[in-house]
């Protein structure tokens, strides 16, 4: 493979990986920004999205239909989690929901093993996605390009939701002065719940997009949870734009490192985080407003 082809390959892979991180990191930040909950079950919900999608495809749904439906089911699970676990802890210190969601992660992992077993699953892709196409001098798997388009679609939809809709305005307002939002006549609790569910939907979407990339297995959410935290920390806790930048950066560094120093890939990512924190202790775009 020529160097141009390799470069194209690395760039596309970085965008795919960075895109998955982005959807995860932004989801974590939306949940944190409005609820002050650091959702340690985020990776488990990602796995749940992939498994729901796997089952939907296994019973005959098309991958794209599953990509739409699985996240909605994860969102419903998120709503139950919010009502049953998060809501009663609202007035308590953040540490309570931190421990609760940590426990929840193991519960969901366990349920996944119970229902789907230990063996790795493969999401059956439509015929056309099983080929490769040439992108300039490189030949690239179609399914990766489709995932990239899927990521772009999710990011666009999210930007429209946050930027243009009433719910988006309410969410952005409630991330800084929730009390004033309620004084303006808006049920701010409902906005906070919506943000929690939205974050869970994003985790499910990321899982369903990543399923064909990394295969589907019970502990698939663990590594991604760590990477998503790295993204959130580098970008700045609560900063959506920071998470976008950080996700692309981490995706690029990890892809590059995997290409040149495979065993050291995660180490490089942590070194990147350490480097950013030395110069920007609150992350690239962190304002520290959520501390």
């Amino acid at each position, binding site marked *: 493979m020529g160097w141009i082809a390799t470069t194209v390959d690395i760039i596309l892979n970085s965008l795919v990986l960075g895109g998955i991180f982005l959807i995860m990191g932004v989801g974590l930040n939306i949940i944190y920004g409005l609820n002050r909950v650091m959702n340690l079950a985020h990776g488990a919900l990602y796995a749940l999205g992939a498994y729901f999608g796997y089952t939907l495809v296994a019973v005959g749904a098309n991958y794209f239909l599953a990509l739409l439906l699985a996240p909605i089911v994860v969102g419903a699970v998120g709503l139950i989690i919010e009502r049953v676990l998060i809501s009663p802890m609202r007035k308590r210190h953040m540490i309570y929901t931190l421990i609760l969601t940590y426990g929840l992660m193991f519960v969901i992992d366990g349920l996944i093993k119970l229902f789907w077993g230990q063996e790795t699953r493969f999401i059956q892709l439509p015929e056309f996605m099983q080929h490769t196409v040439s992108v300039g001098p490189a030949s690239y798997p179609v399914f990766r390009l489709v995932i990239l388009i899927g990521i772009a679609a999710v990011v666009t939809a999210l930007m429209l939701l946050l930027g243009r809709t009433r719910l988006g305005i309410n969410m952005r307002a409630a991330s800084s002065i929730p009390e004033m939002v*309620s*004084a303006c006549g808006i049920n701010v609790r409902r906005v906070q719940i919506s943000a929690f569910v939205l974050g869970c939907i994003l985790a499910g979407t990321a899982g369903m997009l990543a399923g064909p990339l990394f295969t589907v297995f019970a502990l698939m959410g663990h590594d991604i949870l760590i990477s998503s935290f790295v993204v959130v920390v580098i970008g700045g806790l609560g900063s959506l734009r920071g998470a976008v930048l950080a996700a692309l950066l981490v995706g690029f560094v990890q892809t590059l490192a995997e290409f040149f120093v495979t065993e050291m890939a995660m180490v490089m990512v942590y070194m990147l985080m350490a480097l950013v924190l030395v110069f920007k202790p609150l992350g690239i775009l962190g304002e520290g407003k959520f501390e």
Partner: protein
Amino acid sequence: MIRLENIDTYYGTSHVIQGLSLHVEAGAAVSILGRNGVGKTTTLRSIMGLTPPKAGKVFINGLPVRGWPPHRIAGLGVAYVPAERHIFPDLTVEENLKLAEARSDQPGAWTLERVYEYFPVLGERRRSGGTKLSGGEQQMLAIGRALMGNPSIMLLDEPSQGLSPILVAKVAQIVSELCKEHGITLLLVEQNFRIALAMAGRHYLMGTKSKIQGEVSSAEIIKDQELIKRTLAV
């Protein structure tokens, strides 16, 4: 109409409002004057439901609302303009206004266009970040945002805070005219009694722990300039 009967409000265990009673008739403009930390802001927060009183009665237009969440109290037509303005930093000027829009079909309901007519500077800067505005502009935005909820009652906390004397006079005049023209009941909190005189007709003089030391009309204050100083020892 606002009526407080013997309310008690706490921050944690600190008992800030102790047995406060007051009332504001529909369409009237009333102020609360008092020194730093006596509980003026907490009184407004108690009415709005932001720091709900633990005891006593709060009536809005005759309805008992103690314990209601703030958004339901706002839904009765109560608007709150905090001393800090609390403009949403992640929202543009227009989004700050839209957020509070009550979207009523009634004639005379407030719309973006009508707020921009009143405050042309907000229209000019509709796409700017809300907190990019100057202090005076932010005060106008906070008032405009309050209007978007079609209020019948406005709770206004220290409009003079952080503004130049000229701006203060201007804001005071705009709000007074607005309230008269639209029949909005005004409960104003001030430390600056000149502003209170210009905006309200009746004044509660509040001492420590929210104890009402007296109740005077603007005419009485104008007649006896030392009255406030004697009562509040400011």
